[in-house]
C-alpha cells in the first residue's frame, strides 16, 4: 500500500486513499430510491393488502366500486380472492397459455438471435451486417402497428390466404390462435435479443477463433466451445428480458390471440375493467409478478456472476 502510494507520488499523481463508506454517496442515491419506494413499492404493498381483503384506508374507494370484493376475516386477511381465481375455470387455461407462449417464444427468439449473431460474427461480410440491421427494424415499429400488420397478414382475408387461394389452396387462418401470439411475440422481441447477443459476440477476440481454427476445430466446435460460452451473460440477459416482456404482454395477445383462453395480461385487464373484479385481477397480477421475479433472479445472478468474473466485485 505504502509502496503504491509512493509510486503514485513519484509519477506526480495524487495519493490514492481508500474509499470510506460515505453518507454523501448514500444521500445522492436516496432521492431516486425514495421515489421507487413511494411510487412503486408502496402501491405494490397496498395492492397486496387489497388482494388479501384489506378494504379500508387506501383501498376504500376501490372497494366501494368493485364487484365480488372479499373482506378479511382474519387479522392477516383472507385468501378468498385467491381461491376465486384458482377455482375460476378460465385461470388454469390462461396460465397454461401464458407459460406456453412465454417459453416457446423465448426459446425461438434466442435460437434465431443466436443464429443471426453467430453468422454475423463468423462471416464478417457486408451481407451479414445488412441482415442484422434488417432484423433490428421491428424495434422502431410500435407494437400496436405491428400487431395489426400481422393480423392483416395472417387473417381470414389476409395476404397469405389470398395468395394461396390463387392456387386453390385453403391456407389456415392463423389469427385468433396461440400460433399468432407466438409469431407476434417473436416479431417484437427478436430485435432486442439480436442487439444484445450480437454485441456480446462482437466482444470475443478474433485471436481465440483463429487459434481454434489453426488447431483444426470445426465450426460447430468453435460455436459450442468459444462463441456461446463467452457470450453467455448477454444471452441470459436477452433471454430474461424477452421472457419478462412476453409474460406481461398485452397488445399482441389481445389483437392476435383467441378470446379464451387468453394470456394473463389481457385477462387481468378484462377482470379489472370489463368484469369489474379488481381484487381478482390483482391476484392474477401477483401471480405474473411472481413468475417474472423468478426470471429476474436469473438475470441478477448472471449479472453478479459476470461482475465477479471481470473482477468488478
Amino acid at each position, binding site marked *: 500500500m505504502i509502496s503504491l502510494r509512493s509510486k503514485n507520488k513519484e509519477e506526480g499523481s495524487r495519493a490514492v486513499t481508500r474509499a470510506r463508506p460515505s453518507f454523501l454517496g448514500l444521500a445522492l442515491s436516496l432521492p431516486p430510491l425514495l421515489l421507487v419506494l413511494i411510487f412503486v413499492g408502496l402501491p405494490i404493498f397496498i395492492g397486496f393488502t387489497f388482494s388479501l381483503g384489506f378494504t379500508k384506508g387506501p383501498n376504500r374507494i376501490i372497494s366501494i366500486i368493485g364487484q365480488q370484493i372479499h373482506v378479511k376475516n382474519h387479522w392477516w386477511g383472507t385468501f378468498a380472492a385467491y381461491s376465486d381465481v384458482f377455482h375460476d375455470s378460465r385461470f388454469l387455461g390462461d396460465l397454461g397459455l401464458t407459460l406456453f407462449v412465454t417459453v416457446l417464444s423465448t426459446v425461438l427468439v434466442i435460437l434465431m438471435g443466436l443464429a443471426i449473431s453467430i453468422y454475423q460474427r463468423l462471416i464478417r461480410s457486408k451481407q451479414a451486417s445488412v441482415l442484422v440491421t434488417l432484423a433490428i427494424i421491428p424495434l422502431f415499429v410500435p407494437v400496436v402497428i405491428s400487431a395489426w400488420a400481422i393480423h392483416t397478414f395472417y387473417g381470414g382475408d389476409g395476404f397469405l390466404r389470398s395468395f394461396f387461394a390463387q392456387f386453390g389452396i385453403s391456407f389456415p387462418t392463423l389469427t385468433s*390462435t396461440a400460433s399468432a401470439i407466438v409469431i407476434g411475440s417473436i416479431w417484437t422481441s427478436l430485435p432486442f435479443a439480436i442487439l444484445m447477443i450480437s454485441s456480446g459476440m462482437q466482444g470475443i477476440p478474433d485471436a481465440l477463433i483463429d487459434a481454434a481454427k489453426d488447431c483444426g476445430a470445426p465450426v460447430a466446435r468453435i460455436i459450442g466451445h468459444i462463441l456461446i460460452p463467452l457470450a453467455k451473460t448477454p444471452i441470459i440477459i436477452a433471454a430474461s428480458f424477452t421472457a419478462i416482456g412476453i409474460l406481461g404482454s398485452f397488445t399482441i395477445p389481445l389483437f392476435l390471440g383467441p378470446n379464451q383462453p387468453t394470456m394473463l395480461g389481457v385477462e387481468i385487464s378484462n377482470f379489472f375493467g370489463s368484469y369489474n373484479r379488481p381484487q381478482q385481477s390483482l391476484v392474477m397480477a401477483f401471480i405474473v409478478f411472481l413468475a417474472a421475479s423468478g426470471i429476474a433472479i436469473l438475470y441478477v445472478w448472471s449479472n453478479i456472476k459476470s461482475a465477479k468474473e471481470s473482477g468488478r466485485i
Partner: protein
Amino acid sequence: MLKKTVWKSLALAAVLSLSIGITAPASHAGSQTIQVYISADTNIQDLWVKTLVPAFKAANPGYDVNVTFDLHGDHDAQETAKITAAAVLHKDPGVDLIDGGFVTTLGAAGLLYRPTAGLLPNIKDVNRTVLAAGKGGIPYRGSSVLLAYNTTNVPTPPKTLDELLAWIKAHPGKFTYNAPSGGGSGYSFVQTVVDKYLSNADRATLVQQAAPDLESKWSQGLETLRQLNAYTYGQNGTYPANNAETLKDLATGLVDMGTVWSDQFSSALKAGTMPANIKVAQISNPSLTGGASYLGIPSSSTNRTAARILANWVLSPAAQNLIVSGTLNGFPVIPLNKLDPKATAAFTGVDIQNLRAGYLSANANDLKSKWASTVPGK
C-alpha cells in the same frame, strides 16, 4: 461548511423531486373552461371535437371546452374511482361533464348533479322514462344495436331472433358478433339471446338493479351461444375483439351478417368504409338492445354551472340537429317534429322511441364474465 451546503441542497432536491409527483393540479373553480370527459369510440370524439364544441363556443362566446378522450372506456374504472374519491373527500374531480357508459353507475351511487327543468330548461322535451332510467344522468342521444347484412347474399334478413339463430346454423361461418367485453354490439347480441329464455319481469329487474340471484337463469342462453361456436365465423369459438373488427369483417365480405351499433354503421357508410350493399335491420322477440347515452355532471364539480349551460345547449333543437345529421347519425332525444325534417328522414323503419334497454352495469359485467368462461373455445 461545504458539506452542510451539500446536505441542504440534497434534501431540497429530494423534496422537489417528490413534490413534482404529488402536486395536485390547480383547481379551476368558477372558470369559463368546461372540462368534458368522453369515454367512447372515436365517432363520439369526432362528434364533440369537430361538431358540438365549435357550435357551442359560437353560440356561447366566452366559454371554452376542454375535451379529454378515453378510447373504448379503457379507464372507466379508474375515472369512476377518481370521481367517487373526489366526492368522498369533497374535492373538485377535475371533470365537469362526462359522456360515457359509467355515468349511470355514478348516478346510481348518487354522485351526479340531478337534472331538473328549472336548472336545465330544455329537459322538458326529453322522454320521462329515458330520463328516469339515467338515475341523474342527462340523456342526450340514442343509438341501437342492429343486425347488419350483406344484401348480395342475404336478400331477406331474419325478422326474429329465432329466425336469426336458424339462419346462423344454416350458413356456417357467415355470422359473427364481437366479444362482449370488447364492445357493446357483441354484448347486445349476447344479452338478447340470454333474454330469450327470461320472463319480462326478470328482464326488467336485471335492467334496474343488481340481481345476482337471477344470473343462474342465464345458463340456457349461454348454452345456446356455446352451441353457436361451430357456426359463427371461424367455426372454432373465436370472436372479433371489438366493434370495429365486426364492421371490418362485414365490409370485407368475410361474414354476411353481424351485430353493429347504428351510429358506427351510419358513420362507416358515410365515410365509405362500409360498402352500400350492406344494410341494417332490427329483429324482434326480443329485439337487440339500444338506449340513450347519458351526460353526467359530478355533484362535486366546482364548475357545474358552466357544465349545466353546455348540457342544456346539447338538448336544444340546434344541437340535436347536429347529432342527427352530422357524421354520427345518432338518434335524437327530443321529439322529431322539433328537428329538421331532412335530417330525420333516415329514421323511417327504425322505431327510435322504444329501445330495449341493456342491463345495469353490475349485471352486464357479470354477463360478460360468464360469457368468457362458458362460450369462447368451449
